């Protein structure tokens, strides 16, 4: 790590009394842990001694002095989980991952194993939390499955199965010509084809027609953060609405959804802002 990157964090607090925990929290949110060099910088800048800062960093469980793995598996060893076999679950995790339960991380930086002294969900014990997902009534035979599913990613949304994601069919708000391209599939559904221009570049862009999916295909790569102009490939009118993105202030791009609604997407590459207005009938 570069020690100078910690300086703005320390200087922001202007050496106020009681700001040490906030400084450490901010450093940890930047690096994921508290590097020793960063603690030294904090000590030098605040004029406190390193041993005091180290004492605070080791006192609070929320602070880590070692980097954590990609996935965090936490076994409850509270009283209820303990009597229902929590320790043998923790032992099984230790055996399968080859690390100790005291916050150790696998050498491939994939898993960190921790224990907790009660999650308040005693009726579900023995309970295991993996990346914020709760697994109730765990048996030792389930440990392997939990590790496997965590490795794949528990937050991954399956586009095909998720009910929040549904296909829409859209048309140009000027000429009402459909924008769907049934011959070219994105996410397994017909794609939405528009032409785009940004800077000196002109090209085509295919959007996934699944509402909630951000998959796109482009002829030429649009740099992140660029605001692109969207055009209908049929009437060549610019698809631009009156409203701006709530998140990044870029103009929103309106498209008419078959069945009478307007979907608007943000024209900035990388911004995921979008909205579906079921009451709107005309582009304002």
């Amino acid at each position, binding site marked *: 790590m570069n020690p100078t990157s910690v300086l703005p964090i320390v200087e922001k607090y202007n050496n106020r009394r009681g700001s040490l925990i906030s400084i450490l929290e901010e450093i940890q949110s930047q690096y994921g842990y508290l590097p020793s060099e960063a*603690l030294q910088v904090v000590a030098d800048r605040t004029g406190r001694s390193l*041993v005091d800062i180290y004492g605070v960093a*080791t006192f609070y469980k929320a602070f880590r*002095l070692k980097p954590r793995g990609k996935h965090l598996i936490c076994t409850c060893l509270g009283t209820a989980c303990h009597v229902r076999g929590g320790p043998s679950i923790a032992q099984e995790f230790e055996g399968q991952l080859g690390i100790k339960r005291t916050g150790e991380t696998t050498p491939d930086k994939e898993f960190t194993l921790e224990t907790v002294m009660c999650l308040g969900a005693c009726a579900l014990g023995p309970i295991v939390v993996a990346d914020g997902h709760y697994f109730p009534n765990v048996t030792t035979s389930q440990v392997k499955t939990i590790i496997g599913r965590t490795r794949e990613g528990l937050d991954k949304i399956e586009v095909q199965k998720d009910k929040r994601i549904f296909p829409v069919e859209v048309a140009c708000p000027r000429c009402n010509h459909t924008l769907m391209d049934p011959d070219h599939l994105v996410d397994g559904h017909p794609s939405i084809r528009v032409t785009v221009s940004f800077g000196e570049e002109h090209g085509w862009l295919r959007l996934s027609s699944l509402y909630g999916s951000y998959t796109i295909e482009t002829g030429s790569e649009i740099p992140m953060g660029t605001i692109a102009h969207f055009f209908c490939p049929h009437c060549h009118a610019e698809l631009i609405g009156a409203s701006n993105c709530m998140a990044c202030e870029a103009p929103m791009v309106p498209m008419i959804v078959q069945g009478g609604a307007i979907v608007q997407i943000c024209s900035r590459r990388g911004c995921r802002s979008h909205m579906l207005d079921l009451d709107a009938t005309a582009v304002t």
Partner: protein
Amino acid sequence: MIKLKINAVPVSVEEGSTILEAAQFLGFPIPTLCHVEGLSPYGACRLCVVEVGEGARSKLVSSCTYPVEEGLRVRTASARVVRARKMILELMLGSCPQSKIIQDLASAYEVRQQRFKQEYETCILCGLCARMCTEQMMAHAIGFQGRGDHRTLGTPFNIKSEKCRLCGGCIYICPACQLRCTYTQPEKAICGGCANLSPPCLEKPNFDDMMCYMSPCVACEIKKD
């Protein structure tokens, strides 16, 4: 001056002093492991408990952190106080059975049993070494870390601290640890001028002005000549 009664003897002491200071000055013995004159009071060992107040409202307080009050009634050796001290000593003997200071105190207080598992620790977490390091040696090299039963004293990251001058003040003041002068391993050691005919502080420039607790010691005197 504040008037109070210690063991029913009316005494008057200066405002701002603690019960322990007052009692020790007037000759009432109160045992303590974590209080040393010149270091800030900390109240860690609890051996200096005394009973203040009357009857049912009396309570046990640590005398090293309790400032004297007008009309206070203090008992330094009531049955309740002695019982509490014996229990504290028995617990300390459980964690650090090898400390001579604790053994002597336990013997003086007639602790004749050992009901707790002996753990052979070398620390009672009194914090004397950290206060010595900070307040007297001005080094601020060691301090508390961790918490609960993982609480320990040491340097940051448990590696040699740049601020530590190896003065040995922490070892000198410790009531529990059995660390002896390790002059045969000069890198880890305090000076050891007392036991060593050619102490490392003679040969190495980095031992100059280290404010060793031995000062004035043999080695320093030789060096000056």
